[in-house]
């Protein structure tokens, strides 16, 4: 049997890229059908197939690495570059929404009453739930680092405890934000204040949910002995993403919640 004379991973032919592209088509055209023709069939199909593709594609990556051993140091280096590039692209995504916020808040128009917050808007008190949320995410950054150290030191029990705590803190943040959204005296329709507030914090909340899901998958893999003390890049990628989510929140808190109130 011929062996490869290089340390790269030549993957098996896979249907997930093309199915993923189809799922994106269904989801986007599904949004159109839902907006304009009051039909959610396509959108539902799109979201379900997107979920199926993600599950199977990532399942296959776990199979290729943990069970088949294809993730050499070279492959891992490529994955590190990839994750860093992805997180950088997400940082630029949020940069756009911060730009929009400062565009509108640094020079408030007469229609807003020439002030920020605009006339009639009662902003959330940054020293109440938002401050608690800041403490929660900072604490979760500490617990995820504790989990990482536990993994590298081979301490299985501590790693599982620390990662579970991180995930619980993430859920606590999400629950508190959902409650804040429900109780807020202003809505997304309340001038550009509402737009910038809910779009920026809303996308952040979505990323918290994504990060919590990523960490939860890592918890299952940790329990199932997938990680070794030297090789646990899936966990590191999740931790990087989680720290990124935390940093975005700190910027949101300082600018939109605090300066903007």
């Amino acid at each position: 049997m011929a062996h490869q004379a290089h340390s790269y991973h030549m993957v098996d032919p896979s249907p997930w890229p093309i199915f993923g592209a189809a799922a994106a088509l269904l989801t986007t055209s599904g949004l159109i059908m839902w907006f304009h023709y009051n039909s959610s069939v396509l959108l539902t199909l799109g979201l379900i197939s997107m979920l199926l593709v993600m599950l199977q594609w990532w399942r296959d990556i776990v199979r290729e690495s943990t069970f088949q051993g294809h993730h050499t140091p070279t492959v891992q280096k490529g994955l590190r570059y990839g994750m860093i590039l992805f997180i950088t692209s997400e940082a630029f995504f949020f940069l756009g929404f911060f730009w929009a916020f400062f565009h509108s808040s640094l020079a408030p128009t007469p229609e807003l009453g020439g002030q920020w917050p605009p006339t009639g808007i009662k902003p959330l008190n940054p020293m109440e739930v938002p401050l608690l949320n800041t403490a929660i995410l900072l604490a979760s950054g500490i617990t995820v680092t504790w989990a990482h150290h536990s993994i590298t030191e081979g301490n299985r029990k501590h790693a599982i405890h620390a990662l579970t705590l991180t995930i619980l803190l993430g859920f606590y943040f999400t629950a508190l934000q959902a409650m804040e959204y429900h109780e807020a005296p202003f809505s997304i329709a309340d001038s550009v204040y509402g737009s910038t507030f809910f779009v920026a914090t809303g996308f952040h909340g979505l990323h918290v949910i994504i990060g919590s899901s990523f960490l939860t998958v890592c918890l299952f893999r940790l329990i199932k002995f997938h990680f070794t003390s030297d090789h646990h890049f899936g966990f590191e990628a999740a931790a990087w993403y989680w720290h990124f989510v935390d940093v975005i929140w700190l910027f949101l808190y300082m600018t939109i919640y605090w300066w903007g109130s």
Partner: protein
Amino acid sequence: GSYEFMSWKKKSGGFCFPHKGLKPIVSTESPALIFGTTTKLASDLPATDSFLGKNKVPDLQKIFQKADGLPVHLKRGVPDRLLYRTTMALTIGGTIYCLVALYMASQPRNQK
């Protein structure tokens, strides 16, 4: 050889990889060695061995390294095939439905 490479890794403890120097074949971690490390670590901590289940990774490694020519997304047989076919039905069927819906939406509407 590669065994010496692995014991060097264990001595250094943490997360170290030799990025310098080109030793493509030698530095490629062969499957048996990575999983040898996993099993060794599990038995290094006998007290936590049974904490939340036992290590089934070596068994799964045997399944997924079987030389049956199956691609990784179908390697487990029936459950993989079922999921694959469901996904294919939803995406391909959905794409056809989508093209029909877009064709219909692009027809001019008559004034009532």
